[in-house]
C-alpha cells in the first residue's frame, strides 16, 4: 500500500496569489494513497524541507509530491531532502504549479483547477515510481582542449598546473590563434606577441601538456568522465620529431608564390613554411596544394637541404585514439569576409582592408615591416576612413544580428596608433554607436578623440568608390550634423563582424552540445553556468561561446579550467539512473532499439532461457549499458514488443499522467 505525502508551496505570493493553495492541498488529500497533504509558505526553505523530512519519517511515506516551482529549479533540493530522511530520492515528483500555472494564468478558479490536475498527475505518477540507485563510473584523469588560441593555451596551462595531463588539438601548424596575428592590445597598447609567445613556449615546455598541432578532432564517443576521442594528425610531410625548425628549407623552396595566411594574404610564403618566427611547435609544414614535389614529383629541394632528414613526402594522415575525462572547447572566432558588401568595394580595391589586415600591415613582422603603406602602391596613406559595424548588428542575410563587441575598442586602438606614429594622417571613424564598457575602455576611447584628434562621426558609409587617381571616394552621412559627406581617402578599414570558426558546427554535432542560431556554443545557463555546456563534461572557453576580448577570454578560459579540474579531481561520478532497460523475457532481439540509440549503449547477448517444457533455449536479447545510456527514450518507442522501458519515465508512468490529466 502506497503512503504518499503531498506538499503544496505558496512561494510567498508567487503561487498563492493566483492559486488557492489550501484548496489544492485539500483536493489532493483525497487522492488514493495520499496520507498527508500540507501547504507551506516556502517549501524550499530550511523549515519547509524539514516539514517534508519530518512527514517522511512520521508517516513512513513511500512517495512525495511537491507542488511548487519548476523541477528544473528545485527537483534536486527535494530529492536531497528526501534522501536525508531515508526515502529514495527518485520517489519524489514535482508538480510545476508556478512557471506553468500561477505565473501564466490570471483567473484564480481555473488556475486552482489546473494546479489540482497537475498535482493529481504527479500523484498518479509517483504511485508507479520505483526506487533507483545511481551507478558510478570512473573518471579518466586527462583533459582535451580543442583549439590552441589564447583561450585553449590558458585552459591547458591551468589544468596542467593542477597536475593533470592535458592535450591541445590545434588545426593550424602552430598554436597561438588570432592573438598571434594582433599587433597591439587595447587599452594598454602592449604588444600582443610579447605577452602571448611566452605562454606558447610555457605550454610547449610543460611536461603535462601535449600539443597536437595541425590536427583535428575526428570523432568523439563516450560520456562525461570517459570520452574516447579520435584525433586526426594531418600529414605535414615533415617529421615533427626530427625537424629542428632551422628554416633552411623555407629559404630554399623554389615555390615562393603562396598567399601567406598569417599575413592575411597580404604577402607570400613558400610551399614549405613555418607560419611565423615564434611558432610553437617550431616545425615546418609542406603545403601539398603548392609543393612541386607533391604535385608533380619534381623538385625535392627541401629534402636535399634538410640536414636533419626530416622531410617525408610519403607521410599520411594518422589517427590517434585517446581517452579523456573532460573536454574543453576553445575553437575561437574568425572575422567575416566583407566581400558580400559591394558598397565597400572590398573585393576589388586593394586599399580597402579589414581590421585584421590592418593589424598585419602595422605589425613589425608584417608584410611591410611595420610601416603602414597602402597595399596597392606602397605609398604612405594620408587619410584613412574606418567603417564600424560591417556585418554586425545587421538584420539582413549578409551579416550577423549581434554586436561583435571588440570592434569599437580595436578601432580606437588603430586610430590612436596611426595618429601617434603618423601625425600627418587624418583619421575618420564612422560609427553607429561607440560601445566601451570595460575597465579603462571609455577613457581609452576618449583619449583617441580628445588627445589624438581622431574624427568620430556618427553616421553610415553609403558607398566606397575607388577613383582613377588611386584615391578612394567615401560617401557618408553625418547623422548629427544631418549632412552628406564625401571624403577623399587613401585607405578604408572595415571593422568586420566576428563569427565562430567553421569547424565549430561539426564539432558540436560530435560532442552532442548545443549551439545557438549564430553557431556560438550555448552555455548550460546564461548567468549561473556560463562556462559549461549542457552536455556533462564539456566546457566552453573563449570566443566559441560569444564575442569576447582578450581579458574576458582568459578569464573564461581559467573558469573552464577550474570546472574541468573539479571534474578530474573526482575518482568517479554518479550516473543518471533514469536510463533504459529491457525486459529480457519480452525482447526478441530484433535490433530495432540498437539502430536508434545515439550513444551505442545497446548491445546484444545470447542468453539461456528456461522454456515452459523445462528445456533450455538460447535467445538473443538486448542489454543496455547504464553508464553509456543518457536516457532519451528513443529505443522505448522503437521497440516493437514493448520490452524497452525508461526508468523514471516509464510507459506506465506517462500513461498514468495522461489519464490523470484527461480524467
Amino acid at each position, binding site marked *: 500500500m502506497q503512503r504518499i505525502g503531498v506538499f503544496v508551496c505558496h512561494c510567498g505570493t508567487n503561487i498563492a496569489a493566483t492559486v488557492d493553495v489550501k484548496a489544492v492541498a485539500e483536493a489532493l488529500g483525497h487522492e488514493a494513497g495520499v496520507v498527508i497533504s500540507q501547504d507551506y509558505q516556502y517549501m524550499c526553505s530550511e523549515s519547509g524541507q524539514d516539514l517534508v523530512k519530518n512527514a517522511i519519517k512520521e508517516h513512513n511515506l513511500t512517495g512525495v509530491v511537491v507542488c511548487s516551482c519548476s523541477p528544473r529549479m528545485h527537483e534536486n533540493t527535494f530529492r536531497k531532502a528526501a534522501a536525508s530522511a531515508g526515502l529514495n530520492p527518485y520517489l519524489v515528483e514535482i508538480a*510545476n504549479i508556478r*512557471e506553468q500555472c500561477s*505565473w*501564466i494564468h490570471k483567473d484564480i478558479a481555473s488556475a486552482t483547477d489546473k494546479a489540482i490536475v497537475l498535482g493529481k498527475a504527479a500523484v498518479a505518477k509517483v504511485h508507479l515510481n520505483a526506487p533507483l540507485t545511481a551507478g558510478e563510473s570512473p573518471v579518466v584523469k586527462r583533459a582535451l582542449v580543442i583549439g590552441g588560441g589564447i583561450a585553449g593555451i590558458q585552459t591547458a596551462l591551468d589544468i596542467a598546473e593542477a597536475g593533470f595531463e592535458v592535450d591541445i588539438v590545434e588545426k593550424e601548424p602552430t598554436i597561438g590563434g588570432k592573438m598571434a596575428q594582433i599587433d597591439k592590445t587595447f587599452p594598454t597598447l602592449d604588444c600582443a606577441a610579447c605577452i602571448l609567445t611566452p605562454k606558447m613556449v610555457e605550454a610547449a615546455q610543460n611536461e603535462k601538456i601535449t600539443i597536437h598541432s595541425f590536427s583535428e578532432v575526428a570523432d568523439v564517443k563516450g560520456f562525461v568522465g570517459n570520452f574516447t576521442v579520435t584525433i586526426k594528425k594531418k600529414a605535414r610531410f615533415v617529421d615533427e620529431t626530427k625537424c629542428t625548425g632551422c628554416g633552411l628549407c623555407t629559404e630554399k623552396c623554389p615555390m615562393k608564390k603562396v598567399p601567406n595566411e598569417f599575413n592575411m594574404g597580404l604577402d607570400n610564403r613558400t610551399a614549405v613554411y613555418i607560419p611565423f618566427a615564434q611558432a610553437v611547435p617550431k616545425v615546418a609544414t609542406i603545403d601539398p596544394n603548392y609543393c612541386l614535389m607533391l604535385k608533380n614529383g619534381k623538385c625535392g629541394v627541401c629534402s636535399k637541404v634538410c640536414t636533419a632528414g626530416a622531410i617525408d613526402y610519403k607521410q599520411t594522415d594518422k589517427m590517434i585514439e585517446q581517452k579523456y575525462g573532460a573536454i574543453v572547447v576553445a575553437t575561437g572566432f574568425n572575422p567575416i569576409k566583407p566581400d558580400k558588401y559591394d558598397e565597400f568595394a572590398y573585393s576589388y580595391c586593394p586599399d580597402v582592408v579589414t581590421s585584421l589586415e590592418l593589424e598585419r600591415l602595422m605589425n613589425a613582422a608584417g608584410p611591410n615591416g611595420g610601416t603602414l603603406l597602402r597595399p596597392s602602391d606602397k605609398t604612405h596613406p594620408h587619410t584613412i576612413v574606418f567603417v564600424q559595424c560591417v556585418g554586425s548588428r545587421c538584420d539582413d542575410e549578409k551579416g550577423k544580428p549581434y554586436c561583435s563587441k571588440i570592434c569599437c575598442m580595436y578601432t580606437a586602438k588603430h586610430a590612436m596608433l596611426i595618429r601617434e606614429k603618423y601625425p600627418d594622417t587624418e583619421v575618420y571613424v564612422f560609427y553607429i554607436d561607440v560601445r566601451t564598457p570595460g575597465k579603462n575602455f571609455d577613457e581609452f576611447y576618449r583619449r583617441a578623440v580628445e588627445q589624438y584628434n581622431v574624427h568620430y562621426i556618427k553616421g553610415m558609409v553609403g558607398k566606397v568608390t575607388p577613383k582613377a587617381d588611386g584615391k578612394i571616394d567615401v560617401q557618408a552621412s553625418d547623422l548629427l550634423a544631418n549632412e552628406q559627406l564625401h571624403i577623399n581617402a587613401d585607405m578604408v578599414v572595415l571593422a568586420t563582424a566576428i563569427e565562430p570558426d567553421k569547424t565549430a558546427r561539426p564539432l558540436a554535432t560530435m560532442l552532442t552540445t548545443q549551439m545557438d542560431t549564430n553557431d556560438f556554443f550555448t552555455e548550460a545557463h546564461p548567468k549561473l553556468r556560463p562556462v559549461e555546456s549542457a552536455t556533462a563534461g564539456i566546457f566552453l572557453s573563449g570566443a566559441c561561446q560569444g564575442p569576447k576580448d582578450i581579458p574576458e577570454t582568459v578569464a573564461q578560459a581559467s573558469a573552464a579550467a577550474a570546472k574541468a579540474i573539479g571534474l578530474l579531481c573526482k575518482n568517479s561520478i554518479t550516473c543518471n539512473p533514469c536510463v533504459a532497460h529491457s525486459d529480457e523475457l519480452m525482447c526478441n532481439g530484433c535490433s530495432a532499439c540498437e539502430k536508434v540509440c545515439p550513444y551505442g549503449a545497446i548491445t546484444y547477448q545470447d542468453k539461456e532461457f528456461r522454456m515452459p517444457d523445462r528445456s533450455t533455449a538460447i535467445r538473443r536479447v538486448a542489454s543496455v549499458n547504464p553508464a553509456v545510456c543518457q536516457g*532519451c527514450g528513443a529505443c522505448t518507442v522503437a521497440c516493437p514488443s514493448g520490452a524497452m522501458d525508461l526508468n523514471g519515465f516509464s510507459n506506465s508512468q506517462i500513461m498514468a*499522467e495522461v489519464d490523470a490529466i484527461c480524467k
Partner: protein
Amino acid sequence: MQVNENFEPVIVAFCCNWCSYAGADLSGTNRLNYPSNVKIIRVPCSCRVNPMFILRAFQKGADGVILCGCHPGDCHYTSGNYFTRRRITLLYSMLDFLGIERNRTRLEWVSAAEGAKFAAVMNQFVEDVKKLGPNRRLEDLRCRKQ
C-alpha cells in the same frame, strides 16, 4: 460549423525536458499568458513520446495533443527529434485513416529561449481545437467523466 462558446477543451502537451519544457518555464517567468486548458507532461526527449500515448490521450477524452521538442539539429540527444518527426508523420496518416481531424495533434519545435513562441503556439492551438469542438471519434465513452 457552430462554435460552442463554453467549450473548454482538454489539452495534453508533451514537452521535452531540455528545450520545450524550459521554453514553457520561460514563458512563465516572463508572465506570458496562455489558456489553462494546456497541461504539460515532462518527458526527457520528444522521442520518448510513443504515439500510443497520444492515442491514449484521445481515448481518455483529450480534445487535442501537442508535442513539443527542440528544433531539428538541437535535440539534447542529437537525433531524437528526427525520430519524433517521422513517427508523428506516420501517426498523422493513421489519424487520417481513423477520421480524426489532423489539427487535433500538433508537433512544434520550441527552444529553451522561445518563451514567447511557446505561449503563442499554445494560444493558437487552443483556439484551433476550440473550433474543432470536442473529440468524439476516439473518445472511449466508458472513460467519460460524469
